[in-house]
């Protein structure tokens, strides 16, 4: 039985420093999805990578206090419902999925109607979903040792 789970001290300290930057980078890629390559899915994958880094560095038992799988399920569904709400709000403008917000100037951050908002919804969904998948996979060893 190992007393200390996770990786060595160096990895743990570097992970503590770097995870926040990775998360911010993921959110940046998702927000500028309508201007540069990226968008919601790529941002969500990077955000989930931050969570995966925490689990790898600290061990799945210890990181379970930070990120629970049920929270991932809830945020996942909330992201999907957010996207669906944006689509249903199109009925305000007259048709399903209609882009009813103002288009704005091409090339600025606040442009393209509700496309940045839908990128945010997809960011939440993909990030939480992939983190949940990884937590479910890493739970297998736990459940076998508990059986």
């Amino acid at each position, binding site marked *: 039985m190992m007393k200390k789970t996770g990786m060595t001290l160096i990895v743990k300290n570097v992970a503590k420093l770097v995870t926040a930057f990775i998360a911010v980078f993921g959110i940046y890629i998702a927000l500028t999805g309508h201007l540069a390559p990226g968008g919601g899915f790529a941002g969500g994958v990077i955000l989930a990578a931050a969570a995966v880094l925490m689990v790898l560095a600290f061990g799945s038992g210890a990181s379970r206090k930070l990120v629970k799988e*049920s929270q991932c*399920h*809830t945020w*996942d*569904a*909330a992201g*999907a*419902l957010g996207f*669906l709400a944006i*689509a*249903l709000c*199109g*009925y305000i403008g*007259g*048709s*399903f*999925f*209609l*882009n009813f917000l103002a288009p704005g100037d091409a090339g600025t951050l606040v442009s393209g109607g509700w496309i940045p908002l839908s990128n945010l919804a997809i960011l939440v969904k993909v990030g939480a979903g992939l983190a949940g998948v990884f937590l479910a996979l890493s739970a297998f060893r736990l459940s076998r040792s508990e059986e």
Partner: protein
Amino acid sequence: MQASLPLLVAIPLGIAFTIVIVAHVRGLKALAGALATLAVIANLILSLYLLGSDEALSLYIGRWGPSGARTLGIELVCDGLTTLMLIVINMVALVSIVFAGPYMKRFTKTWLFYSLFLLMTGAMCAVVLAGDLFNLFVFLEVAAISSYALVGFGCESEELEAAFKYLILGTVGSGFILLGVTLLYAMTGHLNMARVAEVLPSAGLTSPAVLLAAAALLGGLALKAAMVPFHAWLPDAHPSAPAPISAMLSGVLIKAAGVYVLARLVFNVLGPVPEYATVLMVLGAASMVIGVFLAVGQWDFKRLLAYHSISQMGYVVLALGVAAEILATGGSTAVAGLCLFGGLFHLFNHAAFKSLLFLSSGSIEHQTGTRLLKEMGGLSKRMKVTSFCTRVGALSIAGIPPFNGFVSKLFIIVGLTMAGHPILATLAVLVALMTLLSFIKVQRYALEGEPGEKIEGVREAPVLMCVGLLLLAGVCMTAGLATGTIKKHVFDPARNALMKPTVSSTEGVSE
């Protein structure tokens, strides 16, 4: 009425995700089943309401209508065939979800079941509503992925093995469908089905590139529809799934994701060319014959039903193939219409009686704990409602006169004879006789006789399960007696939609 078309997809998807959130809030877990049932009832009411429109409805999402040369928007099309498929999907989904209430009590995480079930239903509705090829592919994948997860839901070793095999084969099929869509896009530059149908003749309906695209598409879709060279996943996947999921898979998924897309592509997009018609006829005839020969010797009730699904889908695809051949060679449209009506009516009937049979096998398994015919016996005395419904289902699938299976098989056989294929008609009659034989075996071993030692004290199934069974039995009985009215309102628009050259009219922007 057009603005309500996306709701058929949005309601199941929205409630699926709401169930996930609700299940994690303490104390609201029991709501999951009720929410799911409400979603399916709303869908069914909406699809019955759509019966009232006389002409094809078309909606461009987000008002991205056709502009100049390119049609960039996603189009939702609802013509007669779509309405028929929507009614089939939502009817079977409603009965399955009512049945699943008591049945799923033996599993944990039932909120996950309801969520995946609604995802599958919503995705299948989107498949039949799709007006362009890539949207069709995406929702086909969503429905397929939900069904892979649902087949392995109980996590027993057999269920996982069957689910894994189904997953690998299904993914290969989807890969080939995407390959076909890619090649069609490369040759025509459009994804919208109506536009592809317009542009394709100028690229050559039987040029080698189009033949390659059609081969990839037909191969992938034959795998989804469980036609004979590609049927290996079905006898393992359908019995291993929980009973409501077997009913949905056999009753709806192989139709909405397999046969419907085959019919739509061959008739409305690729054009009823003699080569594709021959392929459909060969696939249909082979599935019909081989399915029933493999089914007769089975002693596991659900596995027998799964093999019969292959055989009955062979009937439908054979009828579609013969109709395509008649339209391709310029024969009589009345005979083609007859074959199409027989095929589509058999599709509807098979959804009704196969789901009924799978649900009653689930009811028997829930009460007695066994699926093997030799261990059952004497159920007609102990489980009156279930055995009555099993008898109705068995008589329907065997083609006995007042029930619906007789009418549709009669139309298919008459259509085959009038189209000039007496050998195929004789094969169809032989297959019908063997179906009757295997269901006489089912009735003799499961319902008549004396009870085996294992099932001495069985009682009737819970009320909700019996309600579901009785609903489908009612559909089987009325569809046979009221064929004329149903034909005029539901099947004639569906048949006309297939015989027209393109999917929808794209003049101007529709809202």
